């Protein structure tokens, strides 16, 4: 297990900042620009053929604000790799993985609507769980937790929620 992780670290050393092994998963911290090179090497060279998830963490108050997290699994080695990259609130853009993994289409759409991360190269970033016209990104820490955006006008006697 660690032998493969060591080989990955060695091969990707110039592009990876910190790296560690947490709960049996190799964690690589990279700059957003290095994403395609790192993932390409993981896929082609080290056989990480399953793209499990992409999500984001909102560190409100820190700079850069968002941390994007990708998870990969190798069905050959039965090992997992986690990649983390940080992007600023002013320009939350990172490359899309749709060219390498088909599953990236849907997962990037969800991450886009919930956190407002833009995946450059994803051809279709329409809402997938939310609806057209939804303002803001509900999993960002500064989205008011009780703010509702109804699609149907409420019946008489019920106050429509105000758009904060």
């Amino acid at each position, binding site marked *: 297990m660690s032998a493969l992780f060591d080989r990955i670290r060695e091969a990707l050393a110039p592009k990876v900042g910190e790296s560690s092994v947490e709960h049996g998963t190799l964690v690589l911290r990279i700059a957003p620009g290095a994403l395609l090179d790192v993932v390409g090497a993981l896929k082609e060279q080290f056989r990480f053929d399953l793209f499990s998830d992409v999500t984001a963490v909102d560190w409100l108050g820190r700079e850069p604000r968002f941390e994007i997290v990708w998870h990969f699994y190798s069905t050959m080695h039965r090992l997992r790799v986690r990649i983390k990259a940080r992007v600023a609130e002013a320009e939350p853009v990172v490359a899309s993985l749709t060219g390498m993994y088909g599953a990236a289409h849907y997962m990037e759409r969800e991450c886009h609507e919930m956190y407002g991360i833009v995946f450059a190269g994803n051809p279709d970033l329409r809402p997938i*769980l939310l609806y057209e016209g939804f303002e803001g990104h509900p999993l960002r820490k500064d989205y008011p*937790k009780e*703010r509702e*955006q109804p699609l*149907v006008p409420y*019946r008489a006697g*019920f106050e429509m929620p105000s758009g904060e």
Partner: protein
Amino acid sequence: MNAPTIPIRPESQKSGAFEYICTRKDELIGWARKFSLFPYPFVTACCGMEFMSVSATPYDTDRFGAALPRFTPRQSDLLMVVGTVTHKQAPILLKVWEQMCEPKWVLAFGVCATSGGFYNNYAAVQGIDRIIPVDVYVPGCPPRPEMVIDGIMKLQEKIANQQHLIVNDRF
């Protein structure tokens, strides 16, 4: 050439049962309607498990005339909203309710349909009565089958006592 004859029992042999009933017209309609509920299960979440158990044999809503689910709103008169309704789903719920013919009733099954339950966030409607009128609320997460049956009986009581629009001066 013998014409068939219809036997007519002499007055003295009649049993008397069901010869005459004496009731009010709207009570008669209410009595008929409360035992012929055709539910439309609008099942969105985990309460659906409890809906299955309440409509299956051990609890048996057939005893209340509400056994046969119709999977088109046009053939049903009781909309059972079973589970959480989100804002994205609210237009669908409204459309289903609008497609139902009068007379129609709505039962909010479970605490999410009643008030949003513990979901108070960007996604969940805080009670379906914001979208459509509700006749009976059955809280619980999920409600026990006994509570649902109690809710159906409350609805039957309501139907039996309400005014029915087909009762007018021509009927």
